[in-house]
């Protein structure tokens, strides 16, 4: 089981002081947070991609490469990469380059984005969101898997005799997750290719996450990639911890009440009941996260949202200490113990490379 964090990269004023970080401070803070994630023993750091204020991460591979240069072990990922408005050719090139620079510590998560104007800003139409995600990703797969591609589609200039360079590290494309909060088509897409499916699991009730994951698992089996319980599932989550739950609630409430997405809506208590948000002691966070598998089955990746809504860097780093020291070791042990042997781990570059080599041998033996 992999544990990690994902960041939206919002520049939000701290509601308790009114002060917003500069873009430079926010970008540097993101790097500090990623380094801390590795230091406290987490497995994955994922950044969002946005092209409008108040967000800073418009150039994910720049930031991920900078982090990779200062880390040894952590997997660099995205949450999400905009498969709708980015040119799939550029995604193929950028992330293959990042693979080489990081010795394969890369995977990525495809998403459609939720900001309407980004589509026209990049010359696209939001009504084509699903068709863009489908066509662009299909091309991206071919660019990584075929040395020379001839291609024609609805949305992009045709390609004749095109080779995306560099070729993927060891001939193994990065593992891909598909993230979607509410589109069954994306669960279907992930299932069709045998890719991973990630549910953000922050803004909606667990019952909804459960429905999306169940569809993905059922269709994963339908498309012949293995049993439904062997599909590769990731979940998001959102926590705030202090040794006493009263202190956690008191400290987090102003950030919750003014948060960009759900602020000024339901109460912290209602939202905690309706969604997986957990504000309390480390023990409460552990207990809640041990229940997720009852809804979505044994899953492979848990990412936490830690740095948003104006939380100061110092607080975020403290949260990562608590997460890494008190929560993740327990969750890792307990969840690993509960997972049956036939349920695989999330693929990494090493496992995909080994699987590819095994397949070659098998073909050779025939």
């Amino acid at each position, binding site marked *: 089981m992999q544990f990690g964090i994902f960041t939206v990269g919002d520049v939000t004023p701290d509601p308790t002081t009114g002060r917003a970080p500069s873009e430079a401070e926010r970008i540097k803070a993101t790097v500090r947070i990623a380094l801390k994630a590795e230091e406290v023993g987490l497995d994955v750091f994922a950044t969002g991609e946005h092209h409008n204020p108040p967000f800073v991460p418009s150039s994910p591979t720049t930031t991920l490469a900078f982090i990779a240069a200062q880390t040894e072990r952590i997997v660099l990922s995205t949450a999400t990469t905009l498969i709708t408005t980015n040119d799939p050719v550029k995604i193929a090139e950028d992330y293959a380059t990042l693979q080489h620079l990081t010795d394969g510590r890369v995977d990525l998560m495809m998403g459609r984005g939720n900001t309407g104007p980004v589509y026209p800003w990049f010359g696209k139409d939001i009504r084509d969101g*699903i*068709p863009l995600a*489908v*066509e662009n990703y*299909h091309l991206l797969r071919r660019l990584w898997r075929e040395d020379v591609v001839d291609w024609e589609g*609805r949305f992009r200039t045709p390609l004749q005799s095109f080779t995306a360079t560099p070729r993927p590290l060891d001939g193994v494309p990065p593992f891909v997750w598909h993230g979607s909060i509410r589109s*069954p*088509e994306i*669960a*279907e*897409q992930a*299932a*069709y290719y045998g890719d991973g499916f990630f549910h953000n699991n922050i*803004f*909606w*009730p667990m019952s*909804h996450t459960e*429905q*999306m994951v*169940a*569809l993905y698992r059922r*269709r994963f089996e339908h*498309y012949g990639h293995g049993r439904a319980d062997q599909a590769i599932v990731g979940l998001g989550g959102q926590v705030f911890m202090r040794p006493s739950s009263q202190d956690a609630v008191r400290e987090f409430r102003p950030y919750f009440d003014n948060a960009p*997405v*759900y602020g*000024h*809506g*339901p109460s912290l208590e*209602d*939202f905690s009941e*309706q969604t997986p948000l957990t504000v309390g002691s480390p023990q409460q966070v552990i207990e809640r996260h041990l229940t997720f598998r009852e809804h979505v089955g044994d899953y492979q990746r848990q990412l936490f949202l830690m740095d948003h809504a104006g939380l100061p860097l110092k607080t975020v780093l403290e949260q990562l200490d608590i997460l890494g020291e008190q929560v993740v070791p327990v969750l890792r042990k307990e969840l690993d113990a509960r997972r049956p042997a036939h349920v695989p781990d999330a693929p990494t570059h090493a496992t995909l490379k080994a699987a590819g080599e095994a397949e070659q041998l098998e073909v050779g033996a025939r």
Partner: protein
Amino acid sequence: MTTRTLAVVTAGLGRPSSTRLLADRLAATTRRLLEEQGVSVEVEVVELRDIAHELTDNLLTGFPGARLRAATERVVRADGLIAVTPIFTASYSGLFKSFFDVLEADVLADKPVLIAATGGTERHSLALDHAVRPMFAYLRAVVTPTAVYAASSDWGSREDALDQRVERAARELADLVARGGAAGPVDPFDEPTPFEQLLSGP
């Protein structure tokens, strides 16, 4: 015996509310007319006042709370809908509109709907045809030709004009509901579009 369900959405704010009173009269008359055709009727009333906070939360968070979700499911699954709003500032109330704003696209397509409204004076009666009817046209619902408006004065009238309007509109709705066929949309989680179809494009 055939059974049909009628959902009643009422946006009255008072307790008791004349909007609810009108909704109840429309529901009772529709029920009687359907029962005369040998159709038994289950009526489910959604009082929007009871879920007003959840509606606002849904606008802000993007997902429905438990009670709102139950209410929208009752409406989506019903064979017919009676939708009644007070007229505020020349149109439906904001609460009434919010309920229909948070429904998924197309869930009311082909649904027989009787629209009705209440107001302080008769002068607002055309708001039904200028505001409420176009909204349901956009949702591709099947709205009965007769819409029922009740002004405060109707509740003390010696004439039976309101009764006649209720009777006519309820008869139109009952005829549509008796035919059936508005069972609601296909659940995309039960029947996802196969990927080959998504891949081959429109």
